[in-house]
Every structure is written in structure tokens, then in C-alpha cells.
């Protein structure tokens, strides 16, 4: 552990200026991921700028019918919000499927998006890992990789993104609002996280010093009819083996609108556009669900211990679509 300085930000632009000017400064949210990393020796910031007192803790309605979630809203509060539960149940369920009550009370929206992979090798500084130490190698590719990616991985990194919330946001066409030294920019949730490519150390499109200020959800009628299903090794308090966030509207036996994202399969929440395309307009039948899953998983590549994720992702998607089509949430 490296000694560090701690400051409490009073306004957003000076927080951005402070961190941007200091190559070893970071923002601090609830600290439930960052502080662990400092203890484990994965992160060595010299300056922590605490952003939890900034005025970003509200959930507001937008004129176009969507909502704006402040970056500092705690996961528990977001999951319990009435509008979210009614209009975006998949988001509430995803949040409640993550971590534990105590952690969700502390964890913030921005921190949750930026939590880092749970790859065991990433968390152990005594072994090689390209994400932690670029160029050192990937211990997971030939190691124990039951939890690792089947889609979009590279020969540099096969880690998966651990957030449940982010999977729901990817399905919901959310937008991440970011403040930098040049002002605000907006990044779609689907593009916010990256695939590893040859820069495994970079999880997202965020630049150093950029502060997440909010996440916006569009008015999305299909979202009212959505679920999150998380397959995990125990009934609570475990990261997803595979998860599915899905919203579905069926009219006269045909798929009218659909949104799908997978968790636990890739370096980022995996928006399943191919599956959506196969479903849109098609009859809402088991066979079509299976075909949609196959279309999405056609390029899946398995490692030594994670081949089960292909049937698991396929089955889970089928189960979720069936449940939504039958009217269950």
C-alpha cells in the first residue's frame, strides 16, 4: 500500500481540474472497489479526490420522458426508486442481483460502471497480467479460466466485466454523461466499455481526469416489460457466470420490440444486436429464441474451462424470453 493524499471535491469542474492535472490522481466514489485495489497493490494512487459530496445524488425526470441518474446515486437507492422499478425493472433487478446490501448502500452509479474485472490473476500482483501490468502476459488464457470471456476477447486478455448494472444499462440504450476539461461529452452505454484488443489495461473510453456526472435513460416503452436473470454459483453474493438483461414486447404473436444484453461473457456488457435482429418481427416461439441465441453466439470462442458458457448463455436467453413472452417480469 502506498501513502496517499485525500481531498473532498466541492464542485465538479475543480474536481476534474485537480485529477486531470495529476497523473496519479483518481476519483473516489463509495470506495468498495478502489480501496480493495489499493490494499491488494493493484492501484497506487497518490491523490484521492472524493466526489461523493458533489450534487450528483438525484434521480430526475427528463423532458423527453427519460430519466437522469446522478453519478453519485447509491446502488441501493437506484434499485429502490419507484420510477426505475416501474419503467426499467431490469435495472432494479440487476442492481439487486449484485454484491450485498451493505456494498450496495455504498456503491455509486459511476463507481459501479468503472469497477474492474474479478479475474483472479488481475487481483494477484504476484502473477503476470496484461491488464494490471501491460506486456507482462495473460495468466488466464492458459490458466484457470472458468469465469472468462467467450465473446470479443483478444490474445492479450480474456477477462469479463463484472458489473450487473452495466448490463442492464447496455440493454436500455443508456447514455453516460461525462465532464472533462473541455466540457461535457456523451457516450452511449454500449460503447462506454471497450473490448481488450491490444490495450487490456483500458476498460472504458473514459480519459484520465474525466468525471462521470450522470447516466441517462431514454423513454423506452419496451423497458417496462423487462427482466434480469443472473446465473451464479450460489443464490446471492456471487458474480454472474452468465447473465441476461432483456426487454420484450410481443404483439399478435410476433416480436414487436426487443432489447438484449449479456453479462459474464465479454470484456464489456455484450449488447446482443444479432439476436435482437433475428427476433424483431419474428414469431415469438422457442425455435426463434434458440435461433436468436445461436446467431449471437456464432462467433463464441471457448477456453479450457468455460465452454459451458455457450449452452448456458443460450439456455438463459431462451428462458428469459419465454418468461417475458408469457407475461412474467
Amino acid at each position, binding site marked *: 500500500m502506498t501513502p496517499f493524499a485525500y481531498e473532498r471535491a466541492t464542485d465538479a469542474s475543480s474536481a476534474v481540474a485537480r485529477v486531470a492535472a495529476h497523473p496519479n490522481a483518481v476519483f473516489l466514489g463509495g470506495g468498495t472497489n478502489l480501496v480493495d485495489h489499493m490494499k491488494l497493490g493493484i492501484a497506487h494512487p497518490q491523490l484521492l479526490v472524493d466526489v461523493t459530496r458533489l450534487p450528483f445524488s438525484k434521480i430526475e425526470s427528463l423532458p423527453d420522458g427519460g430519466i437522469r441518474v446522478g453519478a453519485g446515486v447509491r446502488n441501493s437507492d437506484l434499485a429502490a426508486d419507484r420510477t426505475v422499478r416501474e419503467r426499467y425493472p431490469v435495472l432494479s433487478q440487476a442492481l439487486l442481483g449484485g454484491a450485498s446490501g451493505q456494498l450496495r448502500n455504498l456503491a455509486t452509479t459511476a463507481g459501479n460502471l468503472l469497477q474492474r474485472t474479478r479475474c483472479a490473476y488481475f487481483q494477484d500482483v504476484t502473477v503476470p497480467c496484461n491488464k494490471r501490468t501491460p506486456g507482462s502476459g495473460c*495468466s488466464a488464457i492458459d490458466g484457470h479460466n472458468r469465469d472468462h470471456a467467450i465473446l470479443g476477447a483478444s490474445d492479450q486478455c480474456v477477462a469479463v466485466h463484472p458489473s450487473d448494472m452495466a448490463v442492464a444499462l447496455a440493454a436500455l440504450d443508456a447514455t453516460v454523461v461525462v465532464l472533462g476539461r473541455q466540457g461535457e461529452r456523451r457516450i452511449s452505454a454500449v460503447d462506454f466499455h471497450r473490448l481488450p484488443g491490444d490495450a487490456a489495461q483500458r476498460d472504458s473510453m473514459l480519459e484520465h481526469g474525466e468525471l462521470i456526472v450522470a447516466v441517462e435513460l431514454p423513454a423506452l416503452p419496451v423497458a417496462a416489460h423487462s427482466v434480469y436473470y443472473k446465473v451464479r*454459483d450460489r443464490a446471492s453474493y456471487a458474480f454472474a457466470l452468465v447473465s441476461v438483461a432483456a426487454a420484450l414486447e410481443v404483439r399478435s404473436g410476433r416480436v414487436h420490440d426487443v432489447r438484449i444484453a449479456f453479462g459474464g461473457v465479454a470484456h464489456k456488457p455484450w449488447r446482443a444486436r444479432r439476436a435482437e435482429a433475428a427476433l424483431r418481427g419474428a414469431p415469438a416461439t422457442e425455435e426463434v429464441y434458440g435461433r436468436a441465441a445461436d446467431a449471437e453466439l456464432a462467433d463464441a470462442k471457448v477456453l479450457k474451462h468455460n465452454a459451458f458458457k455457450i449452452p448456458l448463455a443460450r439456455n438463459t436467453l431462451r428462458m428469459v424470453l419465454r418468461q417475458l413472452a408469457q407475461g412474467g417480469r
Partner: protein
Amino acid sequence: MQMIEPRAMGTPLQRIDGAAKIMGTAPYAFEHRLERPTYLHPVQSTIARGRILKIDTRAAESLEGVIAVITHETAARLASDENKELWVLQSAKVHFRGQFIAAVIAQTPESARAGADRIAVEYEAARHDVSFSGGRKDLYAPKTVNAGYPTDTNQGDAETAFERAEVKVDSTYTTPMEHNSPMEPHTTIAIWESPKLTLYDSTQSVHSVRTTVAKSLGLKVDQVRVVSPYVGGGFGSKGEPHAHNILAALAALRVPGRPVKFALTRQQMFCLAGYRTPTIQRFRLGATRDGRLTSIIHDVVELTSRFKEFAEQTAVPTRLMYASPNRRTRHRLAALDLPKPSWMRAPGETPGMFAGEVAMDELAVACGLDPVELRVRNEPERNPESDNPWGNRHLLECLREGARRFAWSERDPRPRQRSDRGWLIGSGVASSTYPRYVLLGSRATIRCGERGQYTVRIGAADLGTGTWTTLTQIAADALQCPVEAVHLEIGDTEQPNATVAGGSSGISSWGWAIVAAAQELRRLHGARPAAGAEASAQTPKGADDETFAQHSFGAQFAEVRVNTLTGEVRLSRMLGVFSAGRIINPRLARSQLIGGMTMGLSMALHEESVVDERFGHVINHDFAGYHIAANADVTDMDAVWLDEVDDRSTPMGSRGIGEIGIVGAAAAIANAVYHATGTRIRNLPITPDKLVT
């Protein structure tokens, strides 16, 4: 045997230390308030075998707050290398990855940790071998297995009888490496005030820590004091001192007069505090068509560390569970460059009964018999190994009582018959057993105070199990006084010797010493002893110990739901029925037994330490990676017991309940998964990847 009359015993007295624990005033090892503490953080080897060439401590020593660094070159010399696990910082050799190779003593925990990060080590690495498999050419037979049992046994001609059997089961079962994982980490505060060393420790036995540490350091036993009033779980991993005790003592020698506080991190507990060996168990059962066993063969392969042997007694329960004229059991070990395995949650019985009881389920299926009935048909009249009569064997009563309560007779024996909204439902049963152990060597002292009060002293341990409460109840009945009149003192070597809280022997051994001391008090001082009167006595040897086979038994029933699409397994209902002699405190007993069953659930579905063979250590070394059953996994679980007083076992009529709850639990769940799905999973844990198709 002269039994004591139960007045307090059998009542559900609340924990007498409960309020203090809830208010946070019961001091656990790390929490003892001491003046001017220092903090220790270790450096661990990052190779699994080889030697240290150079260790550069200058950057650490110059860091603000760092007081001293100790390495194998600078630490005090130890006196005895008899226990190689405790030969800490004495040589440049590295035996396993994660071994202590240096430690930083500092003014704050943060500076100790920062100092440890700054120590540079150069190694000469040798090729390590941590690859565990049944096909290894170098498997060997240990002299004996844990608790002194013979390595192999042979009765009749098991191989031939198996070959000729009408019905055969020949299956191989595996259990993974598992870690004890008590909530409270292994912790020691060590203070050297020449010539005395004091350790505030988290241990299952203050006295064995004292004798072991004294020997290791070359001190006289009475130079060492160990204090451990409260312990947050041990599950075997605190049954003997580990390297951290010695490291803390070595550090204390370096900073005389100042307490050195040392708590292992969770990650460190995965290489420095013991674990259960993985097992590969080939089980062969031969039977007649109507399900009478003609042959039992149990071949076990497990591992030990290369530098010190530990051989789990996995096949031992197979020697007594069922009748068969032919029987062979065998243990073989692979010696690897890993830390030393040790006792964990019913060593031997837990993995052995997983394999044995799933094999029995497979035999029941092969014979077309109900699994309860199969066990009834193979009930041995006497101990099959020693031929001694049973002290109190009530396995069949447990099975029958459990079957009645669980509505077993309504079960359709065919697999894959019941489902509910996409979840298959199945149920399973397994037997459970654990030996009755009474260890010799404990001594209790009783002193009369004013107004009929008694002070009872014995250096016993409460791991969270309830010793404070149950020993008070036993003392009250032994002294024929109310529990309020008993002032119990445990957890300190200032009190008379007590044997380890292990092998489910604690309450039997310590309680009997208290009963003996009460009898001695009355013998010396009459029925109404005056204030100041004192007596002391040791646990005596039981008259029936050699002539009767004394064991506890039980039956575990489990119902599971298995998601047809995702392969997720959830336990929906579980019942354990146990025969364990008198239950001294039903409230605490229920919590012990349910705790054991929960560990069995955890073993069945979750727990697995994954060793990366390239590096040589456990990579999922935290609680996000190493799954233990959490609240949501434990739903409708109940434990009951037969109303029983064992007058051959102890004067309290008890036999010990610490471990039996876990035994057989994983098998019952695995059998239920088979019944739900028709798929037999023989490799624990049963995770979704093994069931999804």
C-alpha cells in the same frame, strides 16, 4: 459410570457471553488493548520451491514508521526443527509459494504493509511440482493416517468377492482442496518481557500453543502464557499453532517490551493456516441382488506437503459403517510442494462419507432398493473392524425418524419425475457418523467462594461453539448448584491444562474433568464445603473405552431444486437426525448441527480452492472467489436428535456434537441432485457448469 443428575443440562440456556459479543466488548485476539502496540506484515515467497539468494531490506527499513525487518538472516534462532511447519525464517529454503520469508515490524499496520512491499528478493527457483493426480508414480503409503489409524486394512478377500458379486458399483469420486475459512482470521499479539512471552491468540487450544511455541523457541513452558478467551471460528485450522504464531514471537523478541500485533489477511489464510487435501476416492461395492454387501473396497489418494506429512483418514469411516465379510481400505499420498494440509471440519469422515454414501446410493439404484432400506439390510451387529459390541449405535433409528419427518415414503424413487416451473426437484439421504473421542490430559480446578459460589477453572476454548455456556451448565449439575453460582474461567494457560477443542472431544473431555473435580471437592470437603476449599482432578479414562465401539450416528435428508436450463442447484429443504448422547444445551446444539449441515451444503455446492499448477498457489484466495454458502442458500434447514443418554461415554451422558453435522451432508445433497436430474455428479462441488447442457 456414575452419572450426574441433569438440572441445568438439557435446558436451552442462552449464551452467557452473548451480550458481550453483541456489544463488542468480548475481546477477540486482535482486540486486546495493550500499550504501545507495533504491527507486523509478512513478506511471502513468490516461488514454490528453491532458495533465497538475496533479500534487500534497506528500502523498507528507511521507510517512516518501520521499526525493524526480520529475515532468515536476522531472525533469532529457533531451538527445535521437529515441526518443519514452524521452522520459520531459519533458512533460505522455500518449500511452498506464500511461505514467510521476511516480516516488517512498524508503528502502524499501513507502514508495515508498505514496508513489506519494498523488500526486494532474489531467488534461485527450482522446478516445483504441485500436480495432484491418481496416476502419479510416486504415491506412497504413510506409516499411519491422522489420529493414529492404520493406513490400510484388509478383511477377507475383497477383490475376489467384488469380482464375483451379483451387483457391483465401481465409481471414482473427487473432492477438491478446501479451506477452513473461519470468519476471524488467525491472529496473534506477541509480547516479549524477558523472560516471559505472552501470546494473545485465536486458538482452539491455549495449552498446545504454549507447549509448541515454548519448544520451538527453546523456552520453558512456564515462560510462555497464551490467552484466548473468545475465538471467531477455527474449524480445525486453529487446532495447532501455525507459522504465524512463531513469526509473531520472533518479531516480539526483536522489539522487547512492545506488543506485536499480527493478523493474517484472508489471502494469507489460503497458504498459511492449513486446509483439507483434495481426494480421489475409488469406491467399489459388491452386493447380492437383494442388496447385502459382500465386498467393500475404498482406495483413497490424497496429498501432503513435501516438507511435513499430514495424511487425512478418509477411508476410516468405511471400516465401520456397514456389514460385509470382505473389506479393504487404503490411503496413498502424493507429496507436493504445497503448504501442509491439516485438520478441517471432521477430517476423514467428511470426504470419506461423501464417497461412501454416494456409492451406497448408486448401489440402491442398482439393486432397485430404497436407499434407507439398503442401509437397514447392511446394519452390522458389532463393529466390523474390532468386533467390539456397539456402545450406542442408533443409525437405523435416525434413518427411520428422519424418513418419517421428511415424508420419505411419499417419494417416487425414479429420478427426474418432479418439477416445478422449470426446476427439477429431487431428494436424497445419507448416513452420518463420527467417533466419540475423550482426550486425556485435561484438569479442572474448583474453588469455593462466599455464599455458595464456585470458581471453575480450566484452560478450555470457546470457538463460538458455546463452551462458556455448556461448561457452566455441566459445572452447575456436577456441583448441584444453580448456574448463577458458577463462575467459569477458560481460555488462558494460567488455568489448568485442557486438551484441544477438536475431534468433537471438548465438552466430553473438559466436562468430565469438571465432574471429577466436583467429586473430589466433595470427597475432600464434604457436601457443603467452606469458602476457600479447593479441589482439582483430571479427566479419567472411561471403563468402556477399550471394550465398546463408541460412535455417534445420524441421517441426513435433503431436497434440492435444479434449474433445467441453467443447471443451478438450490437446496430447498434439509433435515438432520442425530444420535449423539445427551444434548447439553438444545439451543446451542441446534446451532452447531445446523452449522455443520450448512458446511456440508457449502461443500456440496460451492467450496473449491483452485491451485494454479504453474505458480503453485491457490488463485481464488478470497471470499469473492472461494464461495461459501451464504444466507440465501440456507433455507429450510432443521436438526433434531434422539432423546438419549449415553452412560458409557461420559458422566454427563454426552458424546460430542461438533463435527457430526457436516458428515454425510454433501452426499445427501449429491444424491438429491441425482434424484432430481438423473445425472450422477461424482466430483464436488456441484456447480452449474457440471449440469448445464
